[in-house]
């Protein structure tokens, strides 16, 4: 049986909705485990949805200790459960799994729970190649080929990609600065953000390199926090406390072959495929996107995302993002919360929550006017995208 026909995917459009979101405080929160943070977020998400743990029959966890611990502590008796590796690439996959499980009747109301104590736990992402820093030595390669050369941080992979982008297209540090500066502007309007002091282009350019050509402001934060989302069928969503935000489109595409080395197309092909899948299922176009949540583990990833989705031609992203275009009143507001660079490094989860809050129009000073369609996209060797809509 062929189960990936377009018609089947179209049937998934608006079959499910996000009815609850919850986030903890973000920052340095010693004394709270990843589980504590995830559960605090889940309590907030349940309250947001007007549900209790007894209403849940599905559970997906990420970066907390285990699904057993979360289910046991919350009194959840799942019909369907899963735990995904602590990699940001898995966030979109988790949301897609939840949609599929609800659409196929495996579960009716699913909690997605994420907790991260990376700050107080002293996680550094580089050197040891622990599971939480799986990109430390190149995504798919053998550490024996990278560790002896000191190729030991995820940021270096992106530094190499950006270096090549600069050589190929003439992209500059002055252009890239726009990502960090804009996202900090957004964070300054977000009371939950870790960093809220605006930075200028000059401050960016004078800041220190970590792995050159990337500077400290090009790197995501390392902070503690928890995020939870609750998804259910559109039918059930009508009985929840908040107006539902519908899951309209899903897309995913791997580019894992030869992922030992930085991709020579900046993942453009995989991003285009995943993005188009999501648009097709959502029955919308790129131009319908009111706000884009682009996975900004490192700032060049925003450039690669824009080129892959076709908002600009290959090589033109550095120029395209200038002049307020990705700001709150721009043509395509990006990461309105401040993203991983300035709000919180919740590995994509908080970006999805921000998408929901934008479509609920509860973002206060950083609200994008009339936001109706929001897109999440994570550019990586596995690209995922989710398109959300305020209307079904």
């Amino acid at each position, binding site marked *: 049986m062929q189960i990936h026909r377009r018609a089947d995917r179209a049937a998934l459009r608006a079959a499910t909705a996000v009815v609850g979101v919850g986030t903890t405080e973000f920052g340095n929160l010693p004394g709270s485990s990843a589980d504590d943070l995830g559960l605090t977020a889940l309590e907030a998400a349940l309250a947001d949805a007007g549900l209790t743990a007894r209403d849940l029959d599905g559970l997906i966890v990420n970066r907390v200790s285990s699904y057993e611990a979360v289910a046991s502590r919350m009194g959840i008796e799942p019909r369907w459960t899963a735990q995904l590796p602590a990699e940001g690439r898995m966030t979109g996959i988790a949301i897609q799994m939840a949609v599929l499980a609800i659409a196929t009747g495996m579960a009716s109301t699913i909690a997605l729970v994420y907790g991260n104590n990376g700050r107080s736990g002293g996680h*550094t992402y*580089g*050197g040891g190649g622990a599971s939480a820093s799986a990109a*430390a030595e*190149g995504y798919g*390669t*053998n550490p*024996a*080929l*990278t*560790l*002896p*050369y*000191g*190729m*030991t*941080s995820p940021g*270096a992979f992106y*530094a*190499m*990609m950006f*270096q*090549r982008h600069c*050589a*190929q297209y003439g992209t500059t540090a002055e252009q890239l600065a726009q990502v960090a500066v804009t996202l900090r502007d957004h964070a300054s309007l977000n009371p939950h953000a870790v960093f809220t002091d605006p930075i200028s282009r000059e401050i960016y350019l004078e800041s*220190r*390199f*970590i*792995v*050159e*050509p*990337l500077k400290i402001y090009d790197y995501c934060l390392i902070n503690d926090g928890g995020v939870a989302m609750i998804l259910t069928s559109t039918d059930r969503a009508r009985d929840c406390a908040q107006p539902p935000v519908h899951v309209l489109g899903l897309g995913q595409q791997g580019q894992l*072959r*030869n992922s*030992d*080395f*930085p991709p020579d197309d900046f993942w453009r092909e995989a991003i285009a495929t995943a993005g188009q899948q999501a648009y097709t299922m959502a029955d919308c176009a790129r131009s319908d996107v009111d706000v884009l949540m682009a996975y900004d583990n490192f700032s060049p990833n925003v450039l690669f995302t824009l080129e892959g989705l076709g908002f600009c031609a290959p090589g033109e992203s550095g120029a395209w993002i200038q002049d307020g275009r990705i700001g709150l009143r721009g043509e395509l507001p990006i990461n309105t919360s401040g993203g991983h660079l300035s709000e919180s490094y919740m590995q994509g989860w908080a970006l999805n929550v921000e998408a929901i809050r934008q479509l609920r129009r509860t973002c206060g000073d950083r609200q994008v006017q009339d936001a109706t369609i929001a897109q999440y996209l994570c550019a990586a060797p596995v690209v995922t995208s989710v398109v959300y809509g305020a209307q079904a």
Partner: protein
Amino acid sequence: MNPRYLLTAHLEGLTRHELLISACAACGTQQFPPKAVCTRCGSTEIPRWNLVSGEGQLWTYATFHKTYLTDFHLPSPYVVAVIELDEGAKIYGNIAGPTMSSSLRIGQRVRAEFTTTDDENSHLIFVPADKEGT
């Protein structure tokens, strides 16, 4: 371990100051590190090892201003590069000499040299070809 994935031949080659790169035993395509299935022709034969010239071009690079490993043999800042060898495969290595990243240019010619560290491990270090005075 399945011999299709083993790097032993490459690592032993480095100790002899030889650069050995894996290639598909069926179609000859150089692909490194070795793959269980050739990405070009799909062959599942055990890859063969070819001695290559060590010459190639700087494909991309990054300069580490921070050292993540406590016992790493190079002081920071140091340069990690991806080199595209003339035979087609890519490989990671360091760049020799003062790490003036501004003096490097993507596409420039480099050739492999070998260094042996205090722990008696041998590593690849690429030297810009114009430094030979040729």
